[in-house]
């Protein structure tokens, strides 16, 4: 296997002013190309970890691209993408397709009945949940049993016995597992959906085969039965954790008009309601090559990788409909908002402010401000955990996304302290930030840390892969090379200015958490 002789991560000194000599920046050398069908690729050959390649691709779509009625569909797609094609997941594509068509007809009828009759009964107060099978009418019970038997038959577990089955369960995973793939997974966020795996260096062609196959020919197998799995995922992450449901509500309250207001996993009623047609539309718009970026980081020969990629991914057909722009801007918040929650959690507070999207000129001082507040020598620890002794933990996050951003400060109480005391302490810390410049040494310290962090983020192929995925989806992959200089240029005046601009009472939302008696 040819291997690059020299490390491809070239280090270049950008600035040498730091007292600690640390404010240098890395330059990651990325080979970029785009296929005629529009699919873009980023290649970073490096030999730090021999014999393996971290490989994957990003779809530039997340929950922010959804709308009421189909919330969570981006994440649901992430599940569907592991369910196979006419080649992977079955040996009888035609018979398998028949099952899917029959299932669709039954499920469409179930949905129609629920959306009309069951919703109507629910609105009148006759039943507590229109989707709960316990509340089914006789007609629905019959349909549900019919759908269940079709699903079982397709799996070879029905009355027709194993011969009737057409699914080869989880074959996608099995092929990779046999070939030594590891860490195969995917994740969905507000702005993107990312699929990845680590493969042995000699299996790059398998990766190209598998990924270009599922991108040209996903059939949404198990489109209906997989909903149960996602409901369990929702119960696990949101409904059965102490604060999960409240955090979801706080998000929904904080974002007024933006697509960031609904959860990535979607509202439960929408999760039940997606139709096959909606999924197909979504696929045709967002999963076409012009909206995808492939990324390879690791031990490979770039010329050979390029040939493989061209050979395999050229089979993806370009989309006919370009993704529509996200047009709904977050409206200005006019008055402070508050949520008071009680449950099985410690007293705590979260204070949020609307800020700016990633790449905005103010996003860099806001990120630096979070650094000034955080960690053992940060102002929150010194002021709230140690100084006033009222917090067990305290942290700040500058969360800048593709279309909007927020700044969040949260603290958990110590002893008898209340959420109000924590909030008051933050107001005092904030007043100091708005009134006085951050001292030179404190700013230098934070800059040193941010600069060193830029190196640390390059350790490990997967870490670099994830950074490229986010940077390219939200801004441009070059941001990972350009950001260090932008952070280095932030001044104390910038920080005071953003503290004054964004951290206003009318721009504030507060969640107070109290332990229920």
């Amino acid at each position: 296997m040819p291997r690059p002789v020299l490390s491809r991560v070239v280090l270049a000194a950008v600035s040498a002013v730091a007292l600690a000599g640390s404010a240098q920046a890395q330059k990651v050398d990325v080979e970029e190309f785009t296929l005629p069908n529009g699919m873009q690729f980023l290649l970073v050959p490096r030999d730090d970890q021999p014999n393996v390649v971290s490989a994957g691709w990003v779809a530039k779509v997340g929950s922010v691209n959804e709308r009421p009625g189909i919330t969570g569909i981006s994440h649901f797609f992430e599940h569907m993408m592991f369910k196979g094609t006419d080649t992977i997941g079955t040996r009888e594509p035609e018979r398998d397709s028949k099952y899917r068509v029959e299932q669709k007809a039954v499920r469409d009828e179930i949905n129609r009945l629920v959306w009309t009759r069951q919703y109507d009964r629910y609105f009148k107060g006759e039943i507590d949940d229109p989707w709960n099978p316990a509340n089914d009418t006789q007609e629905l019970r019959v349909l549900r049993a019919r759908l269940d038997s079709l699903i079982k038959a397709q799996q070879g577990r029905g009355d027709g016995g194993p011969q009737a089955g057409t699914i080869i369960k989880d074959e996608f995973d099995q092929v990779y597992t046999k070939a030594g793939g590891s860490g195969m997974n995917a994740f969905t966020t507000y702005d993107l959906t990312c699929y990845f795996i680590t493969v042995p260096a000699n299996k790059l062609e398998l990766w190209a085969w598998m990924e270009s196959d599922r991108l040209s020919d996903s059939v949404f197998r198990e489109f209906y039965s997989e909903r149960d799995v996602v409901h369990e995922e929702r119960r696990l992450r949101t409904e059965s954790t102490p604060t999960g449901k409240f955090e979801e509500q706080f998000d929904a309250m904080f974002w007024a008009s933006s697509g960031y207001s609904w959860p990535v996993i979607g509202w439960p009623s929408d999760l039940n309601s997606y139709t096959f047609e909606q999924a197909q539309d979504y696929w045709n718009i967002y999963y076409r090559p012009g909206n995808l970026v492939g990324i390879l980081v690791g031990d490979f020969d770039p010329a050979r990788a390029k040939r493989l990629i061209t050979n395999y991914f050229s089979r993806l057909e370009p989309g006919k409909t370009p993704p529509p722009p996200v047009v709904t801007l977050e409206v200005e918040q006019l008055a402070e908002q508050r949520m008071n929650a009680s449950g099985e959690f410690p007293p705590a507070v979260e204070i949020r402010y609307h800020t700016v999207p990633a790449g905005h000129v103010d996003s860099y001082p806001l990120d630096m401000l979070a650094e000034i507040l955080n960690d053992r020598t940060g102002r929150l620890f010194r002021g709230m955990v140690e100084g006033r002794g009222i917090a067990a933990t305290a942290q700040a996050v500058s969360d800048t996304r593709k279309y909007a951003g927020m700044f969040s400060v949260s603290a958990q109480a110590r002893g008898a302290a209340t959420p109000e005391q924590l909030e008051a302490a933050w107001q005092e810390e904030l007043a100091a930030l708005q009134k006085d410049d951050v001292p030179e040494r404190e700013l230098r310290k934070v800059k040193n840390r941010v600069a060193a962090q830029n190196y640390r983020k390059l350790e490990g192929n997967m870490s670099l892969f994830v950074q490229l995925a986010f940077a390219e989806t939200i801004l441009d992959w070059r941001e990972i090379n350009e950001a260090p200089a932008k952070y280095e240029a932030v001044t104390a005046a910038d920080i005071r200015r953003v503290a004054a601009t964004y951290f206003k009472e009318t721009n504030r939302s507060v969640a107070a958490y109290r332990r229920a008696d």
Partner: protein
Amino acid sequence: MMAMRLSTALAAAFLTAFATAPDALAAPSATAVSPTSGPAASIPKRPEEIAFEPLAFEPPDARTFRRTLPDGTVVYLAPAHELPLVTVSITFRGGSSLDPADAPGLASMMARMIREGGTVARKPAAFDEELDFLATEVGVAATDTFTTATMNCLKSNLEESLGLFVEMLRSPGFDGDRLATNKARLHEGLKQRNDDAATIIGREWKRLLYGPEHFEGAEPTAAMVEAIDRNRLAALHRRIVHPGNAIVAVSGDFEEPQMLAKLSKAFDGWERGEPVPPPAAPTAVLAPGLYHVPKEIPQGKVLIGCRGITRDDPDAIPLLLLNEILGAGGFTSRLMQKVRSNEGLAYSVRSAVQPKVDYPGDFKAGFESKNATVALATKIVLDEVRAVRDDLVTEDELDTAKKSVIETFPRQFESKPQMLRVFVNDEWTERPADYWKTFREKVAAVTREDLRRVARKHLDPQTMAILVVGDWDEIAKGDLQGRATMNEFFGGEVKHLPLRDPLTLEPLAEAKAAK
């Protein structure tokens, strides 16, 4: 920063990996011509038709990286010059295993206070400020049987950073105010003991398995935390943190002679004490049965399992493969296919064999399912355990498991710090020298009969505990279709364990009394 908080992202799968696997033994699976240089038409119909070039891998030999300082301290060195960073990690034997009976958590607090309590010469705030200004990261953590201190710094300030790091280890300050702060923070943590079902099930499982007297099952009360003082921390520090009980590992951007010189200087005059002996085995025996802890949540949390094997048990490799097939192999495993993929009863379902070096660890399968289907999912898991005892697994299943373990074997040594962790752990635990060299052959030699034999020996549902955290009234009656209820297990005889007062650990009065 750009929203890279993966905590807000949703992953498709929650896979419990049992990392171990291989490579050179995997045969190319077919003969088709690789299309890499051909025209676009040459895409094979199926992935099995792709031919792969061989990928040779020989596990690195620890001896190549092993050095000794003048005082006898063992050092592993692995230079790598891609990034201007250096990582120094010192592993000391002894962790929570040395917690006194009246002070569970003492080793954890010691580790935290070594890092946060300043040094004899520097107050905590001043010490932290120096490290942060240098952008050097230092961490100290106690696990079951080890205490590990790690320092990562820019090459440009290695001298200063190493100086601070070793000063911290040799003469920690254990500052009184910081200790008060940390005790108060830990106290707040104790209050949250019953908030999350995940915390409850973790605690109760260890209690069932190892007993509250053994350090694995022990938890501190608030009074025990309050009683921790500087003297106890210092005494434990003297026992654990010294060169006679340490192995050093260094990776990153450095040259060997200079690094050895720096380390020799840093360790000079540091008194070598006695090495810490291995921990005692627990005396508790798991009582098989059905257990329940109350918690009002819409989804029950379940663990099913028993005591397992030691790391050097001759059955370890067959059991590893069996576990891959049963529930550790991601979507390909039986539990994932039956419970999640076929029935949609859970998002995450997995099994794990966790051998321990000094005494048997455990085997456990676990999942979360809505209340109504906890019984059904439990039944399926137990049926699958019985199936690997009653019948041979298929040739294809064993083949897939072997290939996966063998093909991913090099990943154990993937990064330099990771490779050094393996070497240090192997030396501390006296792993046989040829273990990695012969690992893939041993995997390849396992038969289907071996798997059935180890299943019969080590995975007996009659000896297992089923632990359920959730809303019992909803869970016990089972699913709408009547496919399973909790009465099917151990004759429906359930032992209701109480929730415990988070500060005193005394059973809470309102908990359901045992029936």
